[in-house]
Structures are given as structure tokens and as C-alpha cells.
């Protein structure tokens, strides 16, 4: 309804006299603020959802004391973190230390400027949508590296360097997979990609979906790739020296990135807001929650990988498969007749199965694995 309201209000505003003071820039401001508030609320909802789902899958309840069903738990966490003392190390680089959370958080929010919540309901209908998303999400890495550097703690620096290495390695298969989707849709604009999905791209690009999901989990440092924020990793990570609200920003960054990746996966592969019966923004939310649930599910079940296994996975497993995926998609787009999507789905799924099996047979991890 907010989005219908926004469209109708935009149309209303266009009927105002052209010498309206200040032009129309202020309605972008209003809707930017609305979207940011909506996102923060959604991030808090995701924190609650993850803890409850994690608890239920471990045969216990999640938080259930604060508010009905524990819904106010993220609020309680936020309040706790706000009243903590903000400690800055004495030898730290003050400006870098202060800017790092901001530089890490703002790009993640900026991704949401181009995600379509409904047909035409975007904050900015860029026609290079997905390229913008890829570019912006790389800036968040700079924020993390600034955090590691500005902390004057050699373990934070080590953690931050590992993080940068892993994020940069995983960008490449991610972008190549996106290129596969773009080939089929024929456009970079996210709105057009959703409109082009009469058959959701997860069926047309199963291998692409798998690779994107694994790459996305690795980009946002979620299990099974969360070795940088893990408890049993000794070099305690880039956010050791942060406390108080700045730490809360990093914590929010993790969940906001998870939300952003879920939203991108939904838009690219699952058909965005398309669906019968229910209003489109509700479909979008449902799909985002389902993708997030799959992320929580893998977090509950899988143990962590080691840093060298992480890099080996990116370079030796994901990258070649992404390139082969791109090649096959290109061949199909050029040669396959458009009227037979279902056969193409079956062929693609078969190719994915064959490739995964074949590649695992060839895939040997780095030093220290005994072949049985």
C-alpha cells in the first residue's frame, strides 16, 4: 500500500505547478527515509527470525522472554549496545576507526535503491541495475579493511586481510553467474529482469543458482564460511576493538548484507514479486524470507571451512563452473528456440548434475587431505 501510495503521490506531485519551491527533490528524500526505516525494521525482524529458527532446529525455543514470542529481543539488544561505552584504542587511527562502520554500512543500504518491490516500484529505475549492485557491494569491503587497519591490533589486521582476500576471490564467480542471468534476460535493469521471468530463472539456470548461493554465503561471511567471526578462531576478527554503537553497526551490516543478498537472489532467480493472488510486495517478502531461511538452515547444520579451503573452493570449484555455465548459457541463448523452455530446463538440470559430479571427482582440496 505504501508503494501504491508512493506511485499515486508521485503522479499527484507531477500535477503541482512547476515553480513549487525547491523542485521535486524532497519526495526522493521522504521515500529514501521510508525505505531505510523499513529496512532497519526488516533487519531486526531477521535477527529475531534467525534466532528463533536456529533454536527450533536445535530442539529448544529461541528467545521468548522479551515481548510476546521474543519479538522485542533485537530491540533489547539494540538498547543494550547503545548504552555501552565507546572505547577507542589509544594508538588507533581515529578517523579511519570512526569512519569504518559507516563505510561498511552505507553501501549495503544503497543496494536497496534498485530492488523492485513491485512493478515499477523502485527508488531509482536505473538501467544498469545489477552492475550498480555489484559495484556498490564491493565498497563494503573497504569499510571492513579500514576497520582492521584502524584498530592497531595485528590480529584485527590479519582478520581483515583474510576477509578482503576471500571477498575479492568470491566476487568473480558471482559476477560471471550474474552474467549468465543477464544473457537470458537480455537486460541489466533489475525491473526488466523480473519482468522477463515468465519461468523463474532458478529453473533455467540451476547451476547458476547454486553457484550464486554459495558465493553469496561466502561474500557475507555466513556459515559455513564464517571463519572470521567465529568463536574458536583465535585471531578474533576485524571487529575486536569495537564496542558500543559501532559494534552494533557491524552486527547490523552482517544481517543487512544477508537481507541484501536474499533480495538479490529473489530478484534474479526466483522471480521477484511475481506470483498469483497475493499482492506483489507480499510475494517479495515471502520469497526473501524463504531464501533467508535456507541460509539459516545451512548455518545450523554445516561446520566451518578453513581459510585455505575457502580460497580453494572459490578458485578451483566455483570459477571454472561459473565459466562453463556462462558458455553453455551463451550457446543456449543463441541456438535454442524460445518456444521450448521446459526442455531447456531439463537439459540444464542434467548438465548441472553431471558437472557437479564430475567436478567433485576432480576436485582435490589443498595440502593435507588424504584420499580414501
Amino acid at each position: 500500500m505504501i508503494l501504491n501510495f508512493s506511485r499515486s503521490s508521485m503522479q499527484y506531485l507531477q500535477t503541482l505547478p512547476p515553480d513549487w519551491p525547491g523542485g521535486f527533490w524532497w519526495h526522493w528524500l521522504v521515500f529514501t527515509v521510508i525505505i531505510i526505516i523499513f529496512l532497519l525494521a526488516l533487519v531486526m525482524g531477521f535477527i529475531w527470525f534467525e534466532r528463533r529458527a536456529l533454536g527450533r532446529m536445535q530442539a529448544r525455543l529461541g528467545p521468548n522472554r522479551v515481548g510476546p514470542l521474543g519479538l522485542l529481543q533485537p530491540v533489547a539488544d539494540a538498547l543494550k549496545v547503545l548504552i555501552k561505552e565507546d572505547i577507542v584504542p589509544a594508538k588507533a587511527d581515529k578517523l579511519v576507526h570512526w569512519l569504518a562502520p559507516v563505510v561498511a554500512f552505507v553501501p549495503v543500504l544503497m543496494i536497496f535503491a534498485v530492488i523492485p518491490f513491485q512493478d515499477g516500484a523502485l527508488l531509482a529505475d536505473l538501467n544498469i541495475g545489477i552492475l550498480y549492485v555489484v559495484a556498490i557491494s564491493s565498497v563494503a569491503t573497504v569499510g571492513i579493511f579500514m576497520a582492521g587497519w584502524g584498530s592497531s591490533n595485528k590480529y584485527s589486521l590479519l582478520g581483515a586481510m583474510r576477509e578482503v582476500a576471500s571477498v575479492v576471490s568470491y566476487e568473480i564467480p558471482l559476477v560471471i553467474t550474474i552474467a549468465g542471468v543477464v544473457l537470458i534476460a537480455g537486460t541489466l535493469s533489475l525491473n526488466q529482469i523480473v519482468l522477463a521471468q515468465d519461468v523463474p530463472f532458478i529453473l533455467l539456470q540451476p547451476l547458476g543458482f547454486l553457484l550464486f548461493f554459495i558465493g553469496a554465503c561466502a561474500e557475507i561471511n555466513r556459515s559455513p564460511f564464517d571463519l572470521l567471526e567465529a568463536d574458536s578462531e583465535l585471531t578474533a576478527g576485524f571487529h575486536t576493538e569495537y564496542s558500543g554503537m559501532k559494534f552494533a553497526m557491524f552486527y547490523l551490516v552482517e544481517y543487512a548484507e544477508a537481507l541484501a543478498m536474499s533480495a538479490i537472489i529473489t530478484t534474479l532467480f526466483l522471480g521477484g514479486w511475481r506470483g498469483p493472488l497475493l499482492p506483489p510486495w507480499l510475494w517479495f517478502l515471502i520469497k526473501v524470507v524463504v531464501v533467508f531461511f535456507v541460509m539459516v538452515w545451512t548455518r545450523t547444520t554445516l561446520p566451518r571451512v578453513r581459510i585455505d579451503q575457502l580460497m580453494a573452493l572459490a578458485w578451483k570449484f566455483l570459477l571454472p563452473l561459473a565459466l562453463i555455465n556462462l558458455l553453455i548459457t551463451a550457446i543456449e541463448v543463441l541456438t535454442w528456440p524460445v518456444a521450448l523452455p521446459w526442455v531447456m530446463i531439463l537439459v540444464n538440470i542434467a548438465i548441472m548434475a553431471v558437472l557437479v559430479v564430475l567436478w567433485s571427482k576432480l576436485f582435490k582440496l589443498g595440502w593435507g587431505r588424504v584420499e580414501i
Partner: protein
Amino acid sequence: MKFERYGIGIAKGLMVTIKHLLRRPVTVQYPEQRLNVSRRIRGNELVWDRIKCTGCATCSKTCPQGVIQIITSVNLVENKYEVEKFEVDTGYCIFCGLCVEACPYDALYLGYAYERAKYRRGELVQANEMLLESADRRRSGYFHPEVAAELPRQTLLLERITEEE
């Protein structure tokens, strides 16, 4: 042992975790819901029966920690030992129950309650009247099956959880 490396191991693990969503959680909301403890629980206090106690101090000799202090005196009029002071330092006691096993006159029992925290360390040393049985301080059935028979049955996790919902 065959190792499949095609991601099937991961898929099987995911199946197990998702099945747990459908099971009832095994936790209990503590202060509001409580489980019945064992009938033989070695609770955090000692219950003393003044009438049966003769002051023989077998319990004191058996105690590994030496927490029981007994002072008796001779009562020549009634020709018996009188127990003047029977003091237990529950702060130092490890609730092993050896004293309960040692008592030849069934005069000493372990308590049934386990929430016996005090605010001051001095209150942990209990003597004479503080150790008697009352509605608040019940006896547990440790080493005394006749007391155990009257206590409620223990809740077992085996019986609370049935296989599937």
C-alpha cells in the same frame, strides 16, 4: 565406509536439521514450569531427627569433609546422652550422603529441595532446630526406600519426548 563427495552428505545433514523443526522442544521454562526431581535426590540441605539421634557421632566420623559438629553431654537423671549441639556447615558440605548411610538410627536424611541459596555465608551454618523436618524442608529418599516411596515420581526425558509429533 563409502564417502560420497557430491554434496549428498550435506543434503542428508540438512534433512536431519529440518526434521527438528517439527519436533517439540525439549526445554522447560524454568521458574514457571518445574520438573519433578529424583526421589533420591541429594538436595542442598540436611534434615535431622532430634528424637532418634543419640549423639553417637558416626556421621561425623564418616564425613569426608568434617562438616558435622556434635556436642553432647551426659544427662544423669534420665541416664542418656543429650545432644546439645548438632551443627552442619552446609557451605563446606559436598552432599555426598555418606553420613546418611552411616547413621545406625535413621536419624539423618538429605533434603529434597535444591534451591537453598542464602544471602549471607553465616546462614549456611545450620544447627539444632534449623535442621528439623518441616513442611518446607522435606526429606529425600536417598538410602531410605520407605521415604522415597511417598515422593512424587521423577519426570524422565525419555517419557516426555515421544518419537514423532
